[in-house]
């Protein structure tokens, strides 16, 4: 367990916003290298980790995806040494004033997000809730130095360091979705020591937060028989509707809805009960909001499953997750894969 915390803390200390995932990929490569047979990178930058199965060819394969990109900001303009920013992915701008950030220009430049003082705002903008166009990043440097170090398009990430909070929980930014990358890594570790019939492709996808582009393209390239997406989901927290959020620390969620193959769901649910892994059922009436939404409709279609890790305060710099939920999610997926036999796809039917 200690190793997962250390790995996860490293992961969430690295930048790697959508489109710029090369900042975090090497950390994942390093962790996957000893537990995979082959590592490769897709044309859009997703990391593919391959574990070969034991049976004779042709072996069916399963793709397990956890997106490695994170939300963040990007420099939009430089005005008198202050930086204007745009958002990459969905951010509630009300958390931004006063946040510490890192500007990735020529070097890593610390900065802070500041609100334009009320007296300088246009008259139609209320100072109690300033839109992103009027927030600035102040890096504390003089304008000439800023223009030599920073340019439009440079990523800006939250500088919140990880904090271990009570009850084996972890706080930090980009736990969406690095928590799932950690779960996927744990899954690979478990499988590394267990013979399994199927080939396994672990994929740290890119650009989930903007286009799910990594999921579409890796699924197309790898052409698996089954796919699983591990992503974070809403944990109960103040203000969250109770019917749309799930207890933190009480196990992963299993999504149920059109994006998930009903037989896969049933099999994994029964497995969780056998293994006494606690879980919650997460209804997803139309959209799963995950890489599975893309993978399901690639080429001739791929049966999908979604495993959720409850996370509080999603898309803020202070997301919180229970470490036990991460290892449970990873273990459940590993056990599912370990029990797959050569003929599983023949038995995966509709309407039984």
């Amino acid at each position, binding site marked *: 367990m200690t190793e997962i915390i250390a790995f996860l803390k490293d992961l969430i200390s690295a930048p790697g916003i959508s489109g710029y995932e090369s900042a975090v990929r090497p950390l994942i490569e390093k962790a996957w290298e000893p537990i995979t047979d082959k590592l490769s990178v897709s044309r859009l930058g997703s990391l593919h980790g391959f574990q070969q199965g034991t049976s004779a060819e042709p072996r069916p394969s399963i793709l397990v995806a956890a997106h490695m990109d994170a939300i963040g900001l990007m420099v939009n303009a430089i005005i008198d040494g202050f930086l204007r920013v745009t958002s990459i992915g969905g951010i509630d701008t009300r958390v931004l004033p006063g946040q510490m950030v890192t500007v990735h220009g020529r070097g890593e430049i610390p900065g802070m997000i500041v609100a334009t003082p009320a007296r300088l705002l246009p008259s139609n903008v209320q100072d109690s809730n300033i839109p992103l166009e009027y927030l600035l990043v102040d890096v504390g440097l003089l304008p000439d130095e800023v223009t030599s170090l920073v340019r439009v398009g440079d990523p800006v990430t939250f500088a919140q360091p990880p904090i271990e909070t009570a009850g084996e929980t972890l706080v930090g930014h980009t736990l969406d979705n690095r928590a799932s990358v950690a779960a996927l890594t744990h899954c690979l570790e478990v499988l590394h020591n267990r013979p399994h019939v199927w080939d396994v492709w672990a994929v740290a996808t890119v650009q989930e937060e903007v286009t799910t582009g990594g999921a579409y393209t890796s699924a197309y390239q790898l052409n698996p028989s089954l796919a699983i997406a591990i992503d974070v989901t809403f944990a109960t927290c103040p203000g969250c509707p109770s019917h749309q959020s799930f207890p933190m620390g009480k196990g992963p969620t299993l999504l*149920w*809805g*059109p994006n998930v193959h009903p037989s896969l769901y049933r099999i994994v649910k029964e497995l969780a009960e056998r293994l006494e892994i606690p879980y919650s059922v997460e*209804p997803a*009436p*139309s959209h799963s909001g995950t890489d599975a939404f893309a993978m399901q*409709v690639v080429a001739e*279609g791929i049966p999908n499953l979604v495993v959720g890790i409850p996370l509080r305060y999603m898309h803020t710099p202070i997301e919180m997750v229970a470490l036990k939920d991460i290892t449970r999610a990873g273990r459940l997926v590993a056990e599912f894969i370990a029990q797959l036999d050569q003929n599983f796809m023949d038995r995966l039917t*509709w*309407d039984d």
Partner: protein
Amino acid sequence: MANTTDDAHLSQIGNEQLQLLERLSNACAVSGDEGEVRKIVLEEVRPHATDVKVDALGNVLVTRRGQGENRLRVMLAAHMDEVGLMITNDEGEGIYRFATVGGLAIADLPGKTMLVGKEHLPGVIGIKPIHLTEPEERKKPFSLEGLRLDVGLAAGKVKVGDRATFATVFVRQGPSLRGKAMDNRLGVATLIELVKRAPAQIDLLAAFTVQEEIGLRGARVAAFTFNPDLAFILDSTPAFDLPAWDVDENVRYNTRLGAGPAIYVADSSTLSDPRLVRYLIDTAEAHHIPYQLRQPGGGGTDAGAIHKQLAGIPSVSISVPGRYHHSPASIVRLSDWQHTLDLVTSALFHLTPQVLAGER
């Protein structure tokens, strides 16, 4: 309708077809949970198909191979799913919170009876008595947040994740048919009929698709699998041909009941291939089949996903017009269904590779 030897391929809608439509309309198949309709489709098409398979999303893909050389591979699609509800939370005492699946208007829900889950358990969406409301309150529309499904004191019979549909029963009323999910059980019934009587000079690739109402999901992979030369999409489209209150002329009727099959030039998801639009119009005129052009814009059909697959698939949609889609019951005219079937049948029987000669 002329019944010359040239029209010998046409089939008359009779009791058999009406009973099939009734079973389809009464079946409950919300997007993602199309099993009940899939079962009926499989029973009906198996005896007539060269090959049948159910794919990774639950689409039923039917191939009926033709004979002869240079056969066109013609895809036909009709979606099996309907809009409905999914139960999202159990609040005890038989009361459940729900979400809508597909474009279902909240205003159509209060005071309706529903069927819940595989066992079609009856339930109601209630509202509080008028006596306990204020006039100002009644001016505001209901929101999803304020509505619940009530199955009575039946603890444990309904689970989170179960789907629910309107409890409408199909009936025939003179020239009209009334039932739920006419969008798109009419398309499904039509496609079943076409599979049974497919022409020999084409390969008929029939896709009974899933999840159209939540993003044309099934059609996308079905088109990839089939890789056809062209596609006809059978759906249902609204007829807003009711009185327009404060203008002289209703210019936004979309389609009209009784005016025949509606050919799509453009909707929000597809600009139909003009060659195929022309072909359908020419076919209708040559065979004296009434038709109308659906007013361009808005809406969407499986064509939206199909035409963009692979290196592109020339596509066009044809719909039976219906009033009150996505509500507890739609009303359609039997004659419009007959003429739609006639038009598509004639189009298939006379189809040659010439139809795609020339650039789009």
